[in-house]
């Protein structure tokens, strides 16, 4: 089981801030493919990966990052702090 977190417009588009999924996905990209296949709102949220960022266990990473041992994956748009 992996916790998946969504922030900003990704959260709004999917309609969830957090969910748990049971997945065997080897990489973030595999997980995204699984989520996209679920429902239209996921397909929509993940339609353009270049507009998204991902963190695995609270560290920014790439979509080809492995998920072995990961407990928490977060998807969000580019950050706008400051």
């Amino acid at each position, binding site marked *: 089981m992996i916790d998946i977190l969504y922030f900003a417009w990704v959260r709004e588009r999917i309609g969830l801030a957090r969910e748990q999924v049971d997945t065997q996905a080897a990489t973030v990209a595999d997980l995204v493919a699984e989520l996209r296949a679920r429902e239209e709102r996921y397909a929509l949220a993940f339609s353009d990966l270049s507009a998204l960022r991902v963190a695995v266990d609270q560290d920014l990473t790439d979509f080809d990052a492995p998920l072995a041992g990961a407990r928490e994956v977060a998807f969000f748009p580019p*950050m706008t702090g400051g």
Partner: protein
Amino acid sequence: MRIVVQENPFDLGAEANAFASGRTDMGAIVTFSGVVRDDPAHPLRQMVIEHYPGMTEKALEKIAAEAQARWSLGDALVIHRFGPMQPGEMIMMVATAAPHRRDAFEAAEYLMDYLKSRAPFWKKEQGVEGDAWVAAKDEDEDALTRW
């Protein structure tokens, strides 16, 4: 080094004084503060900042530690708010203390550049014409290439 992520307002003056006081080895103190800006052409009701609790603190600590490793810093401070705030309210501040001014300035700019694009905060502007997430700017991403 002090990293604070909070919903409540903070007092720039009190924080700047506390940061600067009691040092006789640091000749240069720089502060930066970010203020919620209103645009008369598109009046803002409020700004709401969302963040990623846990990762935010971790990311800010990493950025501040990197700044301390790259410059001769005596100390660094980062305060960043989340939640709703009105035009004119302070969103965040950083402060740096160094023996010399160039280090203090560069480290503060570095903190700001990284905090802007690498700490998990997202701004939403709620205006009289509707709500919109603030889009990241290419120039903010480009700013990282100079470090």
